[in-house]
């Protein structure tokens, strides 16, 4: 005969709902700590330690030149993360600019933005990445720019839709009738509302950008022999397949996948925090 409603408010921050988020943050902090505290001397060649299987001293084993794979992987991941994060941020900023511009500068601007999105989406992502990387002459910079300049279309679409909705909101309509400039409306009315969407979009871009960075460096774009990105490590492992050194390919890849997953979890967690009602 009792009717109890014990559900706590979904909009508040509760450890239970966001435990994944906290774990993911801890994982990434741990990764950064590893990068800071691991001794970089393990990166040098050591011919007495060639092709050692994983052990306590070398959890990820060593490669054919006796280099510690854990250290190489962590350093490589940091390169990938750095490139991925910077590129995702640039892409998200492009998306924000285009999305808002499309909504406030009238019909033609909107058509231009949708057209740009259509064109950007009519090539396979990886082909576009290769083209841009080729255009800027390859290298780490090439990979960075390629990822940065190719991830905006889908987020632009989301932000444009959001901005278009705002456009017909009563307070924006009234603001316009008061003779406020487009700039004023864009900065005072649109941006504050788009910031959560933008942040979520940015966070959800991270995993994509990191994966694409890894893919491009795996394919051989942006070779940097001094601080190899994790994609390069995996490409190297292909050359050592027949030696039976399984750890060269498996462990760096696993750490990459886990890192990407953590960014995914953080993105999903923040999305849930901002928009608890959505899915």
């Amino acid at each position, binding site marked *: 005969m009792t009717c109890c409603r014990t559900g706590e408010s979904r909009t508040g921050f509760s450890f239970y709902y966001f435990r994944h988020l906290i774990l993911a943050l801890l994982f990434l902090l741990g990764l950064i700590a590893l990068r800071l505290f691991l001794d970089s001397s393990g990166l040098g060649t050591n011919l007495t330690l060639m092709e050692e299987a994983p052990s306590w001293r070398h959890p990820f084993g060593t490669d054919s030149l006796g280099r510690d794979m854990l250290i190489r992987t962590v350093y490589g991941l940091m390169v990938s993360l750095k490139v991925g994060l910077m590129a995702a941020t640039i892409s998200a900023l492009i998306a924000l600019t285009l999305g808002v511009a499309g909504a406030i500068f009238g019909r033609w601007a909107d058509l231009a933005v949708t057209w740009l999105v259509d064109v950007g989406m009519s*090539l*396979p992502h990886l082909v576009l990445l*290769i083209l841009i990387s080729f255009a800027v002459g390859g290298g780490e910079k090439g990979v960075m720019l390629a990822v940065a300049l190719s991830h905006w279309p889908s987020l632009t679409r989301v932000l444009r839709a959001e901005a278009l909705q705002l456009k017909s909101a009563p307070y924006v309509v009234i603001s316009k009738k008061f003779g406020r400039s487009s700039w004023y409306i864009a900065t005072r009315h649109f941006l504050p509302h788009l910031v959560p969407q933008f942040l979520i979009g940015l966070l959800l871009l991270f*995993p994509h950008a990191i994966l694409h960075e890894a893919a491009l460096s795996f394919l051989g774009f942006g070779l940097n022999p001094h601080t190899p990105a994790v994609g390069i490590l*995996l490409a190297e492992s292909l050359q050592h397949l027949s030696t039976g050194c399984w750890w060269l390919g498996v462990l760096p890849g696993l750490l990459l*996948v886990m890192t990407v997953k953590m960014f995914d979890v953080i993105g999903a967690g923040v999305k849930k925090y901002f928009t608890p009602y959505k899915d």
Partner: protein
Amino acid sequence: MPSYLLKKSIHFLALMVAVTALAFTLVNLSPVDPVSAYIGTDTRIGLEQREAIAHRFGLDKSPVDRFGFWLNNIIHGNWGESLIFREPVTSVIGKRFWPSLALMGGAWFFSGVIGFTLGLAAGFKQNSWLDRLLSGYAYFLASTPTFWVGILLLMLFSVKLGLTPICCAWPVGLQAGQATLGQKFHHLLLPMMTLSIVGISAIILHTRQKVIDLMKSDFSVFAQAQGVPPLRFLVTQGLKHVSIPAITVHLASFGELFGGSILAEQVFSYPGLGQAAVMAGIRGDTPLLLGITICSALFIYFGNTVADLSYRLLDPRIKLEGVAIS
């Protein structure tokens, strides 16, 4: 319907011009000198010959003229000569098209059929252990790079178990024409599995969500109230609801499929378009890179158009409204 086709064709042409212009601009921005890339390491070629080559490439004209000239050539079937393979781009693409098509087609089909079936099961048994397993798999695979899956499969099946070949589309030392169909399939198996394993996750998650929505729908409740058990409802009435969007989504995933095939081909040294694109990009083979870019754009456009058409043909709500408008 005719107005629909007209609109579609105009859109298609405009899009293709825009995409080719984009690709053309990008490759022309490249600091790689096409003449040097063409000559390679041959030091016997003098300045005059270099200028002659530059003239033949049209490098002495303005960028817009060059684009017009190039586009005109493309339309007339003259796609230039590949710098790496020293043969016409069209013939390089022609040779590599079929292996790629077999790879992508097979992966598309299997990931579609298996992913759809698993998605049905996961969605129908929402929150069961099966659902948890499948959704977990799909979420995990969503953040897994294709090439890593390829490496793992290669390690397991080719190196460890020795069941599948380690590279290529046919036995090393043979020409494409000499290999038997069985040999080709044997070589295709692992790359195809790689692409399918990754491609399956999106379709599982999509189908699962559609089934969950379907089973919660009002008309599902009504069917139950009429005595139709849930499973029979799903099979006899619900499949149409779930499969139409699944087909559309799967057709619209041609972009990811092509991208995935580039990575899979690279892992398995599979002589398809993707591998050629990577070679062209790294070694500055502009004509080949542009040629493959156009092919990939056509491929995506084809997927999107068929997706759009199938939706219009299969869903009565859209089809009938479309007719009413035109």
